[in-house]
């Protein structure tokens, strides 16, 4: 039965109609009947009757499913969080040191931070990604605001663009991190894609990328993964980056960098920042979202920064004032703990050095896992070319496995990964590589 309602119908009517629609649907799908709690003293329909159950987040849902599995050989290759060789989360030594220093500082208080966050943290973050000698920094053309890790930085930047930039379309690579389109859509931007991954080569579809960016309307926003593309692990070469830069500048496309793996991809902070720095060296404008979740292991502390590199210092300070208007009604001011740790480490040259050593160790372990997995598949004679495992970079490998094969691996081998075939190398260890190789081999040979 169909119930019309106009905008002038009362909320009660709307709720009733929503409930009726819900019940009508429920009667078609058996087993989803609406049940009123018998113990409730609430006699009317709930105002939330029309709210449906949202599906579990696909990426985080992998861990949920993993946790439910009782198998002793289960392997969580879902969410991108670093694990040690022993399969344990890692808190960096330098982070613990920094925290002890903060705790010992009796002058520390928990007063509200400024809306833009910790000044030191912001300056040091800009220096980290842009380079200490960056002219953009020296000329005060960069504004940096502390945000909630990468997600929060992307969201604040996108909200700003939706309000103040004339082009409301952002181009994102195909594929990209699952949360990207949602962030931009909710911020008020419309989302289009540009070709990126080539499944036949398991590498970059560079021609497609150039064509798609080349046909984007002038001034469009383009999301670029600074390094260690998520989920594919496929990065442009430096020469390809240069061509991308030229194309983008010729069309006045606005770069929005997502830098979540600086230092974590190659082991070198400077190397992993090259793409961003290229776009700043030509005096152009860009947005950069930084995350310290992986490279400082501060996942749950939510530490990140949004930097806007502008043409002039005056524009930068006006942009900062407008970013504050985005932040204040979202969370007022950012959390102090994680950013204090980062600032403490970045400003102390000894601690900074210690950090780079621990960071390189994490990156090296992942590179080693890539090699081990590649070797294991070769040993088994698994059909196919698996060299992409060692060619791709960063935390993730896009295996090229399809969703049926993934499902098979979960069912038969208790391997938990996202259905797009992405595995987190950080979740592998020397001890578990052979189990994964067995699973891949079985999936490819039994479910081609």
């Amino acid at each position, binding site marked *: 039965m169909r119930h019309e309602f106009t905008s002038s119908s009362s*909320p009660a009517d709307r*709720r009733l109609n929503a409930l009726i629609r819900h019940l009508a649907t429920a009667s078609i799908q058996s087993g989803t009947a609406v049940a009123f709690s018998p113990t409730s003293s609430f006699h009317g329909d709930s*105002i939330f009757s029309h709210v449906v159950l949202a599906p579990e987040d696909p990426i985080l849902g992998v861990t949920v499913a993993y946790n439910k599995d009782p198998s002793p050989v289960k392997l969580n290759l879902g969410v991108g969080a670093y694990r040690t060789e022993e399969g344990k989360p890692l808190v960096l030594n330098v982070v613990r040191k920094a925290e002890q220093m903060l705790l010992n500082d009796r002058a520390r208080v928990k007063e509200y931070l400024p809306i833009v966050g910790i000044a030191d943290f912001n300056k040091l973050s800009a220096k980290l990604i842009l380079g200490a000698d960056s002219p953009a920094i020296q000329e005060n053309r960069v504004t940096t605001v502390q945000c*909630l890790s990468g*997600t929060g930085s992307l969201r604040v930047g996108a909200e700003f663009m939706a309000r103040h930039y004339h082009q409301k379309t952002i181009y994102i690579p195909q594929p990209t991190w699952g*949360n990207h389109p949602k*962030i931009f859509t909710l911020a008020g931007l419309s989302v289009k894609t540009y070709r990126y991954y080539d499944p036949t080569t398991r590498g970059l579809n560079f021609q497609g990328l150039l064509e798609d960016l080349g046909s984007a309307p002038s001034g469009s926003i383009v999301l670029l993964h600074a390094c260690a593309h998520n989920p594919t692990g496929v990065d442009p070469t430096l020469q390809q980056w240069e061509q991308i830069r030229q194309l983008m500048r010729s069309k*006045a496309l606005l770069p929005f960098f997502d830098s979540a793996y600086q230092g974590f991809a190659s082991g070198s902070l400077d190397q992993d920042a090259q793409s961003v720095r290229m776009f700043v060296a030509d005096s152009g*404008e860009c947005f950069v979202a930084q995350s310290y979740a992986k490279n400082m292991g501060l996942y749950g502390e939510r530490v990140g920064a949004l930097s806007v590199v502008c043409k002039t210092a005056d524009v930068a300070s006006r942009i900062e004032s407008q970013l504050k208007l985005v932040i204040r009604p979202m969370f*007022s001011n950012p959390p102090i703990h994680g950013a204090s740790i980062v600032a403490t480490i970045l400003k102390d040259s000894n601690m900074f050095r210690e950090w780079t050593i621990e960071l390189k160790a994490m990156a090296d372990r992942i590179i080693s896992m890539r090699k081990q997995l590649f070797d294991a598949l070769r040993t088994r004679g698994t059909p196919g070319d698996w060299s992409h495992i060692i060619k791709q970079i960063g935390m993730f490998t896009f295996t090229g496995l399809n969703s049926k094969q993934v499902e098979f691996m979960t069912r038969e081998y208790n391997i938990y990964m996202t259905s797009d075939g992405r595995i987190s190398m950080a979740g592998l260890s020397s001890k578990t590589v052979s189990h994964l190789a067995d699973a891949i081999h079985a999936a490819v040979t039994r479910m081609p």
Partner: protein
Amino acid sequence: MASSVLSLASAGPSASLSSNGIEKGKLNLGNCFKKEKTNLFLKTKSVGRISMVVASDVSRFEGITMAPPDPILGVSEAFKADNHELKLNLGVGAYRTEELQPYVLDVVKKADKLLLEKGENREYLPIEGLAAFNKVTAELLFGADNPVIKQQRVATVQGLSGTGSLRLAAALIERYFPGAKVLISSPTWGNHKNIFNDARVPWSEYRYYDPKTVGLDFEGMIADIKEAPEGSFILLHGCAHNPTGIDPTPEQWETIADVIQEKNHIPFFDIAYQGFASGSLDTDAASVRMFVARGMEVIAAQSYSKNLGLYAERIGAINVVCSSSDDAARVKSQLKRIARPMYSNPPVHGARIVASVVGDAALFKEWNAEMEMMAGRIMNVRQKLFDSLSSKDKSGKDWSFVLRQIGMFSFTGLNKAQCDNMTNKWHVYMTKDGRISLAGLSLAKCEYLADAIIDSYHNVS
């Protein structure tokens, strides 16, 4: 389609301009890292939105205006710039000791130390936050034995203090109650309207503050709530109304609940001062609990900024009391769907502190004592201020509202010109709506403040 213009560092100024000032540039593949700047070879007028043609030296954001400073936070900045020895900061609502220093609670210091010793990992929290925190925060607000908790009818999601929790709720309203309005008190915390504006939720005001009595305009409040379209969301301050300090009496709360029920409105509580207002967590939660006890569906945003002094840790929660556990599960799933593209998952540190303090009987007891101390100091300061005002002011004006008001803030009844006098003549910093933060007042400064208020009230109009 306007021609685009190169912004390569190497493009020279040699190209000539056509009559409308637009030049099609050439793509130069060499010398791409030369740092020399190009001359500005065209300017286009940027009116409002940025023009399509971008010259190499003109920012695409050239048309962006400087936003005004935050009215509340701007007060502290002005105070810092003042060098007068008698200056007093009664601006932002953060607790100060009698020595006017910021205060980190002893239980928080203990919890911080314990956390460092425990050395727990920093993995991502679930989108809804730390489970241990969500459990204790709901119990704290509704009471651990509350049937709604036992029946799992509360959807609780950790949020970024009060602001973040309100924002999640606002986004839920926008998505699932399109067109529904939120009614906010006149006046209310300055950021409320910003939150609803950014969440694209329409809002209007209900009368609240009565300048004639420096008290509650109860009839106006009831009339305006009655008049609102059925199914509106009524934003209520659970206790210690910000900025006025004026709370309804228990009887008035009952009447407010009656009207809300009559009109099928949804009560939406902002509880930023539980325990901080009266010193008792239970007393300060009485209004919310009364609504819940009536079987109403209720939204309640919590903050631990003031009562645990965790301002900068950004820890709070949004709670939605639903009529069934199934409703609560679905609502929670949708709150998660809102949080994920905003910040993915909330910060762990503040949540662990709260969970430690509330979860440990000894720490919980200590916390209660410290909260009583903070609330007590503010009540003492109110008393001293009232005494000073009454003894110094010979006009017979009734200053008792200072004692009737509760919490961190007081609405003095001073108008903007009088507030300016407070600042310019007396170096007392406060917001222009006449609000003072008692938390920023010491016993030692009460007499000085009384002089300032009396002067401003009587000698400035």
